[in-house]
């Protein structure tokens, strides 16, 4: 809602027509002779295109044989994992990769082996021997290269590099330690950054948002090259892919951005093989007829889309040339629909129940692996014997590679017995990076002169002023200021740091954490995103794994569901799936609401804590908020940063002297002990802390009992030392948060306390959570969210009788049975 873009009713309401440009379909009509004559290709180029296609075909044929026959060319081997083969799609992949180099990032679909290998072969061809040796010798400290060299001498570095990429990819697929990611990624997560090969994805369309984030990284950080987003036709039906298209086509890059205001350097390439798994996208599950039509609904440029014959590598190269030129001129995003066909099944278990032999035979008639070399022979580029020689050489190489990748001596598995922590070590990178780039951060006003920053700095950091009187709300440094202060500081340190989300800029974020920053930062560092949570998180993932730092916001925690895949599968898992090659410095801010009912009030910490790979925190005091944000924004791991709308305005009540003006970090895992007592331990998460403090006060005043209160501000990781210390002392523990009790993270804490302190406990730990209902309207808050009285009731009913206490909101055993049986 920028004020300088006037929404003019006269313009908005004016009558007119929307027009569309025609979309070219299979317009390429040149022959090999034409191309040779034009000088665009040498004979060697044309032969290499064929050679690359044979490498791709043989790789997939080999995997197919191993999956279906338990061996390949005399090598016996079984491989239990996935194999989504792309036999038939080789010309499309080789054509796409032909003009790309190591600076161009190609993200894959989940039928990606050919995409990866084509990009690698093209890059190898373009890189010098020195560059190639440098890449191979430095990748995983030369581990893959050492294994590759065991296959024997090669005639040149390029052949070594070809073996290297084939071997690294195959041993990754075979889950070997010698794979590109120690075998932890496998078939659907293989990639190789030094050649500009970025992750493919087991989630259909998963690359849509991630590659868009990578393009954003290139655009904002002035990095060389473009990004190719490869998705299949069926992926175009997925919401996040649409969100990504829209994100890449936002008007603001042109209308508002002061810097980096070129179009997004991204090509969305749809490898259309007509099928999802067994569903036909054309004629059955989708309605566009032609996939390139899709971009017409996203941008007036229609992404300069065209449809090209992916069975002719030269047609694809021809189209790619046009698209790359547009991108290099800053006219992205662009789109290509590359028509192809897969002869192999979706996976090797595919019975082809959904298509006829007649159809498959018709496509085999025009198989590029026979038609293209036939053309070359016809044009006199190759002889039949040359063709056979190339095929033989490819097969021989593949046999060598397969034998080595299957051989446990050359290609051992990670030894989980010797090293049980092999995966554990990959889960987090746990690094600290002040700046991901050495250029100067971009801003329009220096930090110290920025009004917003100065205002925070002028506030009282303690609720009690130097005169001993309470500080007014306006002058009190609150939890919002704590978050804001750190974000200000980090913006001026890390030039790659960008923040976006719904209404982050002009509004300052729905809860005003970014208020004032728009006056000091260009749009390229702080901007409003579309209301598309999948794109917000997915692009942040792509931005971060490309080398930048992203701080994104989903407004309400309830919207986590809209970005489920991006948070749970992408943000959480890429560090470990890449064996630590990728870093994921994404801080995802989500706010737990109140007053706004069932879809705007949920504490979903448990969902996030359940997913391995995420760090999860939920500060409840300004001191915690500042220290944790500092940690999160310096770290290299993905953090889901929970906040509560109940306490943005709250001042620091616990930390002596208030919130320090100096910068400091709170280590993830630590807990915050805010009250000392000997009789009962109250463990809290989130805003429930303040109700626990109230309960502790009542306990002390009415019953003469003193409570230890420990706030868990970092759920994952979590150090139990101080918790156990407290429980050993008190023998009683009640755990409180605003999350619905069933499946709440507190149950996990309670279970661990039970195991760690069983002999010290007077009674089992009691979890006091919100009821397992929808959140009713705010008027009924006290019936849904834990109150101080509930904490006393729980202590009285389940831990220790409080003399004279009458239970108001307890839960008897009979009630526990009933609620569980009813599911409420």
């Amino acid at each position, binding site marked *: 809602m920028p004020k300088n873009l006037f929404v003019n009713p006269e313009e908005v309401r004016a009558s007119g027509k929307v027009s569309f440009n025609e979309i070219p379909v299979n317009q390429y009509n040149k022959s090999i002779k034409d191309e040779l004559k034009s000088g665009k290709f040498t004979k060697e180029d044309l032969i290499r295109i064929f050679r690359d296609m044979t490498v791709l075909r043989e790789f997939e044929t080999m995997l197919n044989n191993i999956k279906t026959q338990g061996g390949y060319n005399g090598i016996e081997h079984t491989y239990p994992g996935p194999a989504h083969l792309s036999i038939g799609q080789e010309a499309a992949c080789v054509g796409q990769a032909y003009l790309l180099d190591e600076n161009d990032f190609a993200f894959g679909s989940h039928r990606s082996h050919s995409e990866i290998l084509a990009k690698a072969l093209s890059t190898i061809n373009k890189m010098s021997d020195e560059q190639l040796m440098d890449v191979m010798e430095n990748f995983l400290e030369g581990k893959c290269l050492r294994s590759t060299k065991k296959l024997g001498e090669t005639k040149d570095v390029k052949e070594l590099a070809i073996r290297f990429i084939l071997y690294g990819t195959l041993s990754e697929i075979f889950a070997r330690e010698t794979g590109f990611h120690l075998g932890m990624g496998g078939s659907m997560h293989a990639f190789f950054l030094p050649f500009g090969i970025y992750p493919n994805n087991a989630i259909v369309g998963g690359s849509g948002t991630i590659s868009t984030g990578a393009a954003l990284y290139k655009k904002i950080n002035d990095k060389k090259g473009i990004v190719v987003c490869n998705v299949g036709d069926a992926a175009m039906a997925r919401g996040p892919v649409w969100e990504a298209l829209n994100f890449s086509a936002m008007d603001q890059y042109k209308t508002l951005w002061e810097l980096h205001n070129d179009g997004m350097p991204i090509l969305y390439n749809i490898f259309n093989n007509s099928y999802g798994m067994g569903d036909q996208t054309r004629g059955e599950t989708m309605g566009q007829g032609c996939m390139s039509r899709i971009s017409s609904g996203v941008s007036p440029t229609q992404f300069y889309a065209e449809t090209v014959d992916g069975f002719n590598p030269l047609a694809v190269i021809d189209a790619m040339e046009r698209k790359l030129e547009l991108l290099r001129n800053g006219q992205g995003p662009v789109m290509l629909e590359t028509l192809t066909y897969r002869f192999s099944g979706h996976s090797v278990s595919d019975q082809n129940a959904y298509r006829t032999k007649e159809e498959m035979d018709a496509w085999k008639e025009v198989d590029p692996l026979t038609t293209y070399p036939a053309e070359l022979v016809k044009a006199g580029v190759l002889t039949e014997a040359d063709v056979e020689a190339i095929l033989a050489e490819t097969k021989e190489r593949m046999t060598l590679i397969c034998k080595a990748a299957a051989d446990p001596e050359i290609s051992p598995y990670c030894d989980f017995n010797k090293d049980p922590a092999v995966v554990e070590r990959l889960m987090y990178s746990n690094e600290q990076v002040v700046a991901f780039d050495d250029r100067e951060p971009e801003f329009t006003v220096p930090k110290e002169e920025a009004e917003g920053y100065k205002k925070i700095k002028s506030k009282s950091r303690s609720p009690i002023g130097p005169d001993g009187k309470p500080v007014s709300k306006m002058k009190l440094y609150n939890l919002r200021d704590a978050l804001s202060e750190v974000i200000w500081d980090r913006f001026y340190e890390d030039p790659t740091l960008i923040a976006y989300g719904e209404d982050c800029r002009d509004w300052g974020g729905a809860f005003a954490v970014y208020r004032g920053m728009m006056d000091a930062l260009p749009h390229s560092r702080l901007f409003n995103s579309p209301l598309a949570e999948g794109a917000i998180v997915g692009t942040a993932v792509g931005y971060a794994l490309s080398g930048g730092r992203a701080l994104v916001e989903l407004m309400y925690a309830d919207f986590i569901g809209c970005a489920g895949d991006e948070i749970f599968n992408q943000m959480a898992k890429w560090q470990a799936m890449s064996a630590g090659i990728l870093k994921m410095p994404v801080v995802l801010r989500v706010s737990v609401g109140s007053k706004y009912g069932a879809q705007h009030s949920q504490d979903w910490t448990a969902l996030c804590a359940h997913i391995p790979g995420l760090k999860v925190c939920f500060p409840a005091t300004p001191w915690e908020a500042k220290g944790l944000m500092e940690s999160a924004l310096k770290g290299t791991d993905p953090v889901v940063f929970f906040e509560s709308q109940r306490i943005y305005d709250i001042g620091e009540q616990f930390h002596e002297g208030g919130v320090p003006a100096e910068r400091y970090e709170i280590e993830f895992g630590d807990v915050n002990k805010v009250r000392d007592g000997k009789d009962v331990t109250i463990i809290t998460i989130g805003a429930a802390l303040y109700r626990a403090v109230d309960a502790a006060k009542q306990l002390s005043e009415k019953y003469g009992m003193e409570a230890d209160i420990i706030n868990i501000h970092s759920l994952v990781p979590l150090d139990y030392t101080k918790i156990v210390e407290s429980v050993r002392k008190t023998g009683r523990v009640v755990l409180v948060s605003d999350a619905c009790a069933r499946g709440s993270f507190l149950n996990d804490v309670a279970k661990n306390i039970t195991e760690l302190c069983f002999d010290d406990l007077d009674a089992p730990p009691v979890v006091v959570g919100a009821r397992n209902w929808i959140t009713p309207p705010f008027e009924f808050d006290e019936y849904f969210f834990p109150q101080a009285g509930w904490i006393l009731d729980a202590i009285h009913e389940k831990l220790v009788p409080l003399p004279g206490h009458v239970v108001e909101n307890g839960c*008897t055993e009979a009630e526990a049975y009933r609620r569980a049986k009813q599911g409420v």
Partner: protein
Amino acid sequence: MEVFDLLVVGGGPGGYLCAERAAQNGMNVALFEKKALGGTCLNEGCIPTKTLLNSSKMYRHAKESEAFGVTASDVKYDHAKVIDRKDKVVKTLVSGVGATMKANKVNVITANAVIKGRAQNGFAVEADGNVYEGKRLVIASGSETVVPPVPGLKEGLASGFVVTNREVLDAKELPKKLVVIGGGVIGLEMAYYFASVGTEVTVIEMMPKIAGATDAEICKVLTDAFQKRGMVFKLSCKVLEVKEKSVIYEENGEKKEIPCDMVLLSAGRKPSTANIGIETLGLDMDRAAIKTDRHLCTNVSGVYAIGDCNGKLMLAHTAYREAEVAVNHMLGKYDEMRYDVIPSVIYTDPEVASVGLSKEAAEEKGMKVKEVKLPMSYAGRYLAETEGGKGFIKLVVDTDKKRLVGCHLVGSYASEIIMTATMMVDTELTPARLQKLVFPHPTVAEIIREAIFHI
């Protein structure tokens, strides 16, 4: 408005003991009873039947003591006088309960109570036009006779031809021919009473045996003894219809009719929870029974259900203990209800008493058990006082855990002896330790000691 610490709805054994214990612990209690304190037990159950059974026992002793060298002639049984005496006993006991309530400053409200649900100060109950509020609420509303959907039964109840445990105790005249529908404990005691004093009694029972879950061998002894007294058992028979002066039932697929001048309906009891306003509380129910946990808490914090209304074990002494567990929960004293060590008694002659598990029940639970069975004649006193007695004891011992888990008795004094075994089961002492207990000699109870040495 005065806010009570506790409201108790129902003045039976559960209700009045709960009120008493709560008051003794400093609570300000209101107890609601629509009829008379003491409930079914005191007014229509345990106590009145015991007075009747004792009279009949004396009558029989007088008539049947030739074997002991005693002959009596012109022995008469005055049923009306027996009933009068019973009324006096009941009255004495009821007023005793009233006095106890008064002494403990329990506010007894003799009026129909209707629960009004949650209130500002906890819960509200309306009685006699007033609303009472209390921080806690105990429901002790008891149980009532089940009336099965048998044609003619309702009409019979209305006309007085069919009676329940309530009316039968007030019948001034002995019926000549009595049909008892249901051969459970309640039915058997009354059937036995009438048979003892000259009524022709037929018991119609749907199951193939009498006395419910009682040990099969004990049932055999009982059945033999009852048949000797002229009682007729129609087992595995189903009552089809109650007519004006007869009962029609089905036996082996054949329709049969027994003429009679009174029908006693004793086909079971159900929790009495309708029309008292419990729906205002949102209680979790199992049909008519209020669900409770081991502390007698219902699903609503502060609301308890004790005695027959929770449908667990409909016995007065269960209600007593439940009352105490509930009060202890209110006081924050750790306590929990055990339903597996509650003794049960049939006050016929011979008496039957048991506690804990039978061998079959224990094996069903997967326990490794040993059963010891000894004739009562091992006890000198039993032999001295009984002619041709068929009494016996059965002990069930968990051989893994070395614990007594059940005791089953049939014979004289069984009702009084069973508490000895109950303590043994409850305290979970080993047989080796139990062998060290000294019993007075001669007593019938010594049979337990004897049996322990046979383990």
